[in-house]
């Protein structure tokens, strides 16, 4: 319990620090968004003072002391008010992020968890049946598949299964005729659209989990408590799972935390290739169009997701490893 409270405290502290940094960093940069917009206009000729006034009025100029701005900002963050997007004017940043986030969370988050679970199980099996085909096949296959770059696998799948064979749609998260709603047909359509991007992520990340788990598992199999468990005649299944795998998984949880944290921010390439309307695609759009409010909100979301993922892994550690509880 003390452990849990400590971790929650740490989470709140880091969250506050992240939010504050997100407030400070843009203010430490020289210039303002209005300057940037005016500089762009100035390439086509002189900018009149009235134009400048109009742009500043549109974007808003900070008033009050830095402390007041900070309080105002905190207040806005708590109410998920991140202002209005430049690119998708007049849509609010909050609604844009709100539409994109579920797609990414469901697709990339789910696939990351599936890859971790499957990869870990295959790794356990490979180490336990070391030297047999159950070891060779996943190890060699995993190494081979994960050696391809992310986007290359995506392009290959897209080309062969999308264009050539025509089995799967090549872009988007749902058909152009469908509207997002909770009906069976729509969910089936979304699932159908998600198969290619999901397969891409699965193929490229599975190998790493298999190899990681296999090598830690082989180390644990040499540990004395595994030998002792065998000497005591425990069931082979108990030895493999409760003694060897249970300890071998602990170092891999850290990598899992990192992968989970990268779900929101790291899906940029795959979402770009498949034109998938998730956070990565949104971030890409924001960067290309210099959409500062949108970028700021997305960076904050990415930071928070990393913190949350690490918090979850910390809690998992607390449950799985009695040594961390003290």
């Amino acid at each position, binding site marked *: 319990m003390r452990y849990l409270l400590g971790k929650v405290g740490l989470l709140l502290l880091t969250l506050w620090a992240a939010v504050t940094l997100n407030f400070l960093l843009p203010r430490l940069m020289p210039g303002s968004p209005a300057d940037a917009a005016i500089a762009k206009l100035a390439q086509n000729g002189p900018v009149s003072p009235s134009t400048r006034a109009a742009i500043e009025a549109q974007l808003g100029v900070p008033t009050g002391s830095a402390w007041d701005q900070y309080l105002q900002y905190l207040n806005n963050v708590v109410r998920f008010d991140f202002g209005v997007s430049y690119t998708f004017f007049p849509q609010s940043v909050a609604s844009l992020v709100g539409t994109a986030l579920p797609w990414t969370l469901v697709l990339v988050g789910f696939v990351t968890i599936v890859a971790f679970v499957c990869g870990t199980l295959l790794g356990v099996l490979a180490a336990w049946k070391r030297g047999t085909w159950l070891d060779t096949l996943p190890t060699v296959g995993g190494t081979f598949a994960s050696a391809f770059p992310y986007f290359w696998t995506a392009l290959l799948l897209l080309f062969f299964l999308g264009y050539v064979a025509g089995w799967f749609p090549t872009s988007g998260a749902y058909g152009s005729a469908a509207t997002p709603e909770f009906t069976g047909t729509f969910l089936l359509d979304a699932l159908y659209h998600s198969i290619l991007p999901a397969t891409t992520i699965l193929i490229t990340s599975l190998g790493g989990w298999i190899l990681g788990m296999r090598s830690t598992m082989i180390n644990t199999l040499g540990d004395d408590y595994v030998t002792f468990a*065998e000497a005591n005649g425990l069931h082979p299944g108990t030895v493999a799972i409760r003694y060897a795998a249970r300890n071998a998984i602990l170092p891999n949880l850290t990598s899992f935390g990192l992968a989970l944290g990268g779900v929101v921010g790291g899906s940029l390439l795959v979402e770009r290739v498949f034109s998938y309307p998730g956070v990565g695609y949104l971030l890409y759009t924001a960067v290309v169009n210099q959409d500062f409010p949108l970028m700021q909100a997305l960076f904050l979301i990415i930071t928070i997701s990393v913190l949350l993922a690490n918090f979850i892994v910390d809690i998992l550690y607390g449950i799985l490893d009695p040594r961390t509880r003290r």
Partner: protein
Amino acid sequence: MSLVSVQGLSVVYEPNGAEPVPAVKAVSFDLDQGDFVGLVGESGSGKSTLGFALTGLSRPPARVCAGSIIFDGVDIAGLTPSQLRVQRHGGFAMVLQSGMNALNPVRSIRNHFFDIFAAHGHVAGRDREARAAELVGKVELPASVLDRFSGELSGGMRQRVSIALALSLEPRLMVFDEPTTALDVLVQHAVMDTIRELQKAERFTAVLISHDLGMVLEVTERVMVMHDGLIVEDATAAEILAAPRHPYTRMLLSHYGDPRAAVVEVPGLASRGTERATNVAQAVAGGAPVVEPVVEPVEPVVEPVETTPTVRRREGRAAREAIVVSGVSKVYPRHSRRDQPVTAVNDVSFTLEPGASMALVGASGSGKSTIAKLITGVEHPTSGTITFGDLRIDTIRRRQLKRLHTEVQMVFQDPYAALNPLHTVEYALTRPVLNYSSLRGRDARRRVLELLETVGLTPVEQFAARLPHQLSGGQRQRVVIARALASDPQVIVADEPVSMLDVSLRAGVLALLDSLRETWGVSMLYITHDLLSARLVTDQIMVLNQGSVVEEGRTATVLQNPQDDYTIRLLDAIPAPRSSAPRNPS
């Protein structure tokens, strides 16, 4: 009929792509119900391999390649893994060498017991809790340990738990593989007593595998001595004590001595009387070779070092200085609010005179290694002063450390961990030579070879090119000592330099350390829990208990006439195979 009958058993190691190495060679013996048998040998003799084969635990690359192990009428060498698994209940159990790590760190002790009960189904569900509590009671632990995890238990407690776990199989044969080696001296003694009493009460057949002939002779009725994969002697403990037949047994036995005796002697090392340093070179030359040529000693006892002018580099150096430690304490701050601050060293004062050798003796946790850290400037004391000449070690800054380490060097306990496995001996020795002297190029290399000669690793050219894994433990420790000598130090702090070595190698390393003092005037702080070796190589002794000095004086005087209760307990914990009086278990 005997319980276990081993006939012509051979075990080979077959590493992938390498030549198979025989570890156990056509060994035959019988064990009767209720026997307590010792299996003694040095590292590499095949004793653990035999123990693993006896309990059906041979795993690749080890393989039983010939012979049979008839356990109660069944040849267990020929059973399938699942048949073997079933046999373990009421059959054979094993307690591993590093019992500290024999417990799953993420499962509670209770679950360890329940896993075994579930695997064999010999204890009904509702009786399991009571049975587990009864078993931990047998090894003198409270039932509350069942709720704990292995990380929360001390080494001795963990080893007791693994004995209780092995016992829960209701075995008829129990193999103890070095069950107390990793434990503190006093704890070793207590755990051994528990094993002895359990064996008497439960009447299982026990095999005690150990490198420590002294302990085995004290505990068991019958002893099998193993050397190079063969059982070279199989006799009762009394017979072996009275008339060891095999030269190897005689060699092992000759390395035991009573540190309390007036004259103590092991091969290659002089007895040290009450007066100061006897001449080691003389003793080595005078002592008759105990090892007969039939058994090749793994490493020859060190020859007295010729002190050529090139080796003696003392000239032109600053006058020799003493290390003066006065009123030194070290308190480690508490880790969390629940802990208490730990006082590792409490108001310790002593002077290590130039050319003197002093033993720092105590059980683990007595603060002896902390004192080594303080003297080498690795840590600063909380209070008190340490000086070396005009150098204040207690407040030393990083920049001055190099100056200190030119004069004060350390020899570590574990020769297997103290050398980088990727670098040759020459590289390991060249580094400090370049670091601490102005020698470069050919001169530096000559100095490296000189150092190797000093520590008796000849032919030097050959040893210089070797990698650590191509050396025996004793040879590695010599390299570590040579490395410490590279800066031509005045003081050597040796932290348990021989505790990881085989008995037959210990004397050689100790003789080397002693000769360095004789020929070079290097003073030595010898940290150990082994009172016999302290008696052999030191003149002064300090006994530490929980950070405080409880006794100090001349080594011979203190050991012959100990005043403090703690010193007496340490002395009592030493196995004394040659003392005929039976000691009562404490």
